[in-house]
């Protein structure tokens, strides 16, 4: 199986197969290497002697590697096509965490400057300001004040000035 993996800013195309005592893996069509291991219990994978905590949700794998919390995206390139096409473009603001919209200081059609606050979301008693990544015009506001959001929700779209 082949997957596109992204973790901590690293990207790789990875091939993986079952093999004796575990699996074998190669990165970006490099040499195959054998990985010994098994799932010792739900969410815990022993790899080459060390335990890694794993949890899959959609395309995201949450990990705990030696106390470090990491998140990897693992995508099957064959199935990902449709999603990729609709994926976030530069001008899209979305929230990485759930929360409640508390303030929208701009309106559709407003000109905004890079760094200007577009949407304010409250999560865990903290206000998080989502700012325009570049100068432009507010093309769409997808939420209203008071909306409860899930992580990944699209907040607004800023059309960049030509």
């Amino acid at each position, binding site marked *: 199986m082949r997957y596109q*993996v992204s973790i901590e800013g690293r990207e790789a195309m990875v091939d993986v197969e079952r093999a004796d005592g575990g699996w074998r893996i190669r990165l970006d069509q490099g040499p195959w290497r054998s990985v010994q291991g098994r799932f010792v219990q739900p969410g815990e994978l022993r*790899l080459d002697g060390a335990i890694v905590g794993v949890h899959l949700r959609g395309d995201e794998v949450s990990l705990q590697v030696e*106390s470090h919390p990491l998140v990897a995206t693992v995508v099957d390139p064959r199935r990902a096509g449709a999603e990729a096409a609709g994926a976030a473009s530069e001008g899209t603001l979305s929230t990485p965490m759930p929360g409640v919209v508390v303030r929208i200081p701009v309106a559709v059609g407003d000109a905004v400057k890079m760094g200007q606050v577009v949407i304010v979301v409250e999560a865990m008693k*903290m206000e998080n300001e989502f700012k325009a990544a570049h100068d432009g015009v507010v093309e769409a506001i997808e939420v209203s004040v008071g909306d409860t959001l899930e992580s990944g929700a699209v907040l607004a779209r800023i059309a960049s000035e030509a």
Partner: protein
Amino acid sequence: MNTRPFRRVLVANRGEIAVRIVRGCHERGLEAVAVYSEADADALHVRVADAAECIGPPSSAESYLVADTLMDVAARLGCDAVHPGYGFLSENAAFAQRVIDAGLVWIGPPPEAISAMGSKTAARQAMHSAGVPVVPGTLHAISGADEALERGREIGFPLMLKAASGGGGKGMRLVHEEHELADALLGAQSEALKSFGDDSVYLERAIVDPRHVEIQILADAHGTVVHLFERDCSIQRRHQKVVEEAPCPVLEPATRDAMALAAVRAARAVDYVGAGTCEFLLGADGEFFFLEMNTRLQVEHPISECITGVDLVQAQLRVAAGEPLWFTQDDLQIHGHAIECRIYAEDVRNNFRPAPGPLAVYREPSGPWVRVDSGVVQGMEIPIHYDPMVAKLVVWGATRDEAIGRARRALRDYRVVGTTTSIPFFLALFEDPDFLSGQYTTGFITPEWLEAHMEPPEECVERGLVAAVITRFEADLALDSAEQTADVSAWKRTARWREAARGWR
């Protein structure tokens, strides 16, 4: 002060402290009634209580903060006492009075003491009158920019503007120079009005790079006030504590005695009853100043329990039942060293941004002198509506070095998967030479320090990459094979592999 024996306690809180209080009640043979919002229906505090009632939708303003609902539950379920925990209504004098007026025992200080210390300016005045050193500044709210400038010049810059009815870092402005003062005042007043309904602001000299050292107080309703020594809470982010230790590693015995004396004097000045804390700022020169008094049990109370052997929740329950304290100040001694790590669901590398998520795998460390106070269990999702605390990890050691070593070991044993937590922050902290030497102040956590210490090693990232791919691969295999056959046993195998690959949930 209305103290008398009671049997059934309404625990007006949630999360780890609600669990703590329920356990405390059970250890005294008392019954505990829990309340929960819709977001907390499966929470641990609900499961351990003797009875529980839903009090509203997830938002605190519609649940844990609604006095009417709490009083109604107390009445219907036959509660004769209320324990407010910390936060929420614990320092709301009106609520305390309402509990008392309804004929229930309030497990906390008298409403008058709560009011006296709730207004920061009133508290400063009371302390000043009692001869407790306060941070140099105004004792009253200032009337406007002119007075601010005049007093500011007397007090000296840098200056801290603070909300008189405030707390939690809101309504505060640090002013370095005169020309910034007018704008800062307007900003502080507006924020104070919005957050606390009162735009009164007072001035304090900003103590540069202080340590935050607080004294635990315990008083009964018979006039006895003791202290349980100090806690150093200087490691903070956004004015919120993340690590606390007892005793303070750099406190001179004479300073300790003076601070403790001041704290006891402060408690007596307001006829305090119950558990409370006097917070001080400790300057590099050993000078200390009263900051504020918290008229409730605090998050970090466990470390004082560890070094003194006194169970503070038990003490609260006994004092509220009218019992005199069963020990004197002379009976109390500092024994060993304790450290607490507040483990939050947050992304330390992203400015400690809250990172709610599922606790797909959650296993607390244990072992001798390792204590974990938490309100979570494996399988739960950390709710977004409250602060993102996962647990308090508390360790004790015969020496500070032993406690630190124990903390390192416990942190490494802590399994959390599915949610990003601040565990790696503590591991990095416990390697830092300044922390190890005890030489740190409230300015310790800086963006530079975080950048230098919080990068995961390359080797971990690689292992993570491999683990992620294998996890996904196995899950897809299980999915494919289940889709291909209608075999019942294949479904069972799939379920096991799915669980294995995806964690629980």
